[in-house]
């Protein structure tokens, strides 16, 4: 079935993809070049980060190239590019550490820097130690989205506010980054397991669709009269604009909301097709779903471009205050990374659709993958536990209470509980294989929500992260 559908794939679409990826890399290189020309200094943190981005993106596109052409040597080069990216990333981390005088854990920008570093390092470990050669197919897009996000987040070294001047902060955040990177790896491994375990391609289609639905639904929480409400940007202070202390000023970009609704509809179409095919028990509808994914990919790109053009600068009205206010991409990092992330997920699905057999050939056996997934979670879980404990201890020294049910805390506890559930089911009830893999994927989804979703949707004490 999968083979038959893989063969339906016209070669021209593959070429389009290569051209798109090539254009993307060229664009990044051009931007990097502009940056060097502007500052005249080569070895700065932002240039190192750009280099890391280019190498990661190169590795990512090589994996995609492998996906399109099935040439195995691409995978080897992708691994080399990952090494180069990690090297540049290490440089950026070191530069940051030196410039700021404290380990890079104090702002969400610095945390992402450490997270991406850990993720790339773990990817290489999984490649070398466990022989999961194509693991980067999933982890690198995560890293790329991370670096893209970093380009937008406020990156200047700010002195630590009093509450953050604690060794416990560093312990807490180091543990968090290590744990989250391990969770990301376990997620990638679980996906690989599902591929190797002959899970039907349409199940991945439904998953892809669900991810995009969740992303667009998240973005549409800011839907406002057909427009999209985004945070205003304070150009003078280079920060988000505030109405009053702790209350951000939102401006509405007209019409963008409808485009996002369209994106949501397109994202939901493949899932609807999947449900219909399941209900009718008729697989002949499924190719329509694949086409719908392609359509939704195009719409996602359209939404991203429209968002880039309209939110990059420009003055918009606000519902809460008179007059026009500027906004900037920097004010909406989460919307942007959501848009980029869902494009990546759709691309990955297309890659799976076209090149499943080559992937399967390169992967270790399902049983090995299952084992390594479990082992990674065995690493992640104690780290999560210690991360929460260190955070509680720090909170106790700073706010006088070790647990205050703030959203970030609560979601960290939820993550811990989900993984605890996984371990119980695996150890005592012998959950192996698919069910365990789905549980691991759920765990990572919760991790992502804790890391990004909570910051975007649920305000609380963790204001600086």
């Amino acid at each position, binding site marked *: 079935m999968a083979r038959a559908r893989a063969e339906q794939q016209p070669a021209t679409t593959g070429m389009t993809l290569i051209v798109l990826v090539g254009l993307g890399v060229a664009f990044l290189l051009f931007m990097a070049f502009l940056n060097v020309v502007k500052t005249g200094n080569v070895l700065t943190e932002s240039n190192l980060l750009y280099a890391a981005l280019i190498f990661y993106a190169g590795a990512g596109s090589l994996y995609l190239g492998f996906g399109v052409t099935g040439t195995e040597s691409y995978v080897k080069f992708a691994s080399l590019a990952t090494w180069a990216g990690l090297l540049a990333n290490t440089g950026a981390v070191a530069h940051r550490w030196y410039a700021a005088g404290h380990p890079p854990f104090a702002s969400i920008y610095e945390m992402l820097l450490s997270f991406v570093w850990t993720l790339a390092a773990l990817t290489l470990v999984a490649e070398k130690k466990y022989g999961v050669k194509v693991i980067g197919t999933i982890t690198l897009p995560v890293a790329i989205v991370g670096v893209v996000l970093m380009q937008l987040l406020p990156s200047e070294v700010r002195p630590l506010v*009093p509450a953050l001047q604690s060794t416990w902060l560093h312990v807490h955040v180091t543990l968090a980054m290590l744990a989250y990177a391990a969770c990301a790896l376990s997620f990638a491994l679980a996906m690989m397991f599902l591929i190797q375990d002959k899970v039907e391609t349409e199940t991945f289609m439904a998953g892809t669709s669900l991810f995009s639905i969740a992303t667009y639904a998240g973005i549409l929480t800011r839907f406002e009269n057909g427009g999209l409400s985004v945070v205003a940007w304070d150009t003078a202070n280079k920060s988000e604009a505030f109405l009053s202390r702790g209350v951000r000023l939102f401006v509405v970009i007209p019409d963008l909301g409808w485009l996002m609704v369209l994106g949501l509809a397109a994202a939901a179409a493949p899932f609807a097709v999947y449900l219909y095919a399941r209900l009718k028990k008729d697989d002949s509808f499924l190719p329509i779903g694949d086409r719908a994914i392609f359509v939704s990919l195009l719409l996602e790109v359209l939404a991203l471009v429209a968002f880039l053009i309209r939110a990059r600068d420009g003055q918009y009205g606000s519902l809460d205050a008179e007059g026009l206010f500027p906004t900037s991409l920097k004010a909406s990092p989460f919307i942007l990374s959501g848009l980029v992330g869902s494009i990546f997920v759709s691309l990955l699905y297309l890659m799976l659709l076209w090149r499943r057999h080559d992937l399967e050939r390169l992967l270790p056996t399902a049983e090995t993958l299952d084992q390594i997934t479990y082992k990674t979670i065995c690493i992640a879980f104690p780290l999560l536990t210690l991360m929460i404990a260190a955070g509680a201890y720090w909170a106790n020294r700073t706010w*006088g209470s070790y647990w205050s049910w703030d959203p970030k805390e609560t979601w960290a506890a939820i993550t811990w509980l989900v993984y605890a559930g996984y371990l*119980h089911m695996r150890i005592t009830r012998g959950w192996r294989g698919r069910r365990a893999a789905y549980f691991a994927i759920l765990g990572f989804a919760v991790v992502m929500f804790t890391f990004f979703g909570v910051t975007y949707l649920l305000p609380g004490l963790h204001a600086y992260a």
Partner: protein
Amino acid sequence: MATKFGSTGRKLWQLLSSVKTGVILLMVVVITSAAGTLILQRPATEPDEIERAYSPQVLRVLDAVGLTDVFHAWWFVLMLLLVSVAIVAASVERFPNAWRYFARPYKTTDESFRRALATQKQIPLKNEESGLVAAERTLHRMGFRPERLVGEEHISLFAERNRLSEMAVYIVHASLLLIFLGGIVDGLYGWRGFVSLTQGEPVNQIAVREGSAKPLSFSVRCDGAGQENYQDGTPKRWWSKLAVLENGREVMNKEIAVNDPLVYRGVRFYQASYGMTGKMNKLLLTATPASGTGQAHDIALSLNETLQLDPDTAVQLTRFIPDYVVRDGQVYRRSEEPQNPAVQLLVKSKKLAKSVEVWLPRIPEVAQNQASPYSFSPRDLQMGYFTGLEVSHEPGQWGVWSGCVLMGIGLVVAFYLVHMRIWVVPVRGAGGDLALWVGGTANKNREVFQQKLAKLVDQIQNELKQRETESEACETKHAISMVGN
């Protein structure tokens, strides 16, 4: 009737102690706490914000079921208690078996046991004793401590490592209960409050969150507070010097800062906020004799304080106006903000037999400065500050911290320590030929253990070979010496 109750009781017990129930309970906790972060919570939001967000009907329903304060709702607490009970039940159900396994390890090797063991190998052998010795040596070299067991038919060896690993689950669960216990103790006996101290005034009552005042058996006094800034003006550090007084006697003092509280008798004081009271604390100024002869004095005055400048002259600080304005030759107080402060000094001179009022800064309409025997120039005005302190009493936190440490240890033991057991026994095969049977198990990481056992077998074989050549050499030597005789 009794049996019936017994059977429902047993069923309930089975239900509670099953892992499935535990995981389902965990997932219910997950879902409700997620709801608690998505729905606006009463303690954290302003009442009118919550009223704006939900319609009155919806809000009434949410309030009724406790969804606007999930984490303090009775059913949420009940659920956490149920989780604890499930953990206890599951542990009680499984612990005796595990303990038997832990306390009385299975060391002997009968035939059925040997047949059942998954990982095993046999080494051909000539002599029972030399086989055992070789195995012992090899095990020692690999870091085991083999013990000899004398059975009915033969002597066997048993070696193990990290037996504690079998108990790890109970360590982790016990630590979780300890954390819960700490939380419950704090929920029942702990409190949180806020106190605002102005410099020099001791306080022995704390305004508790719930609205009442909590008397303390001691009092605290602030001896100074301040803020340090970074170069760009953002705050770097807030600090307060605190003293603890018991029966009027100072028993403790500490400079606290954010992240570094003062703890006295289980009550913790945290730096929370900081600001000005609008009152002055001290004025530093220089007094120079108007005649030009004599020494200039650097003096410090607080409100209403009198200071002798020379045997004839004294100065008193009589008024402080934080924000002054002059109208019709009169000085008025415009606001309480210390934006434009002025002070009035009274200079009393015995020699001139009169008092002179001096305003600082100089106010032309009301100036009498020329008549003063001293001229004054202000150096620094120190304002009175108040410091806001969060106060908490958490008697259960030690349960929480020891629980965290114990859990860390438990998890490391659970995930990274492997309980390995190895049995060695000389056996006779069906054909009557002697062999050394080597078998083992591990409670996790089985592939690695299999490799380890294979290595062990290899090394025993090497050891045996070595011993054989040695003893052969020895025999030859013996033979030669016999011949020599």
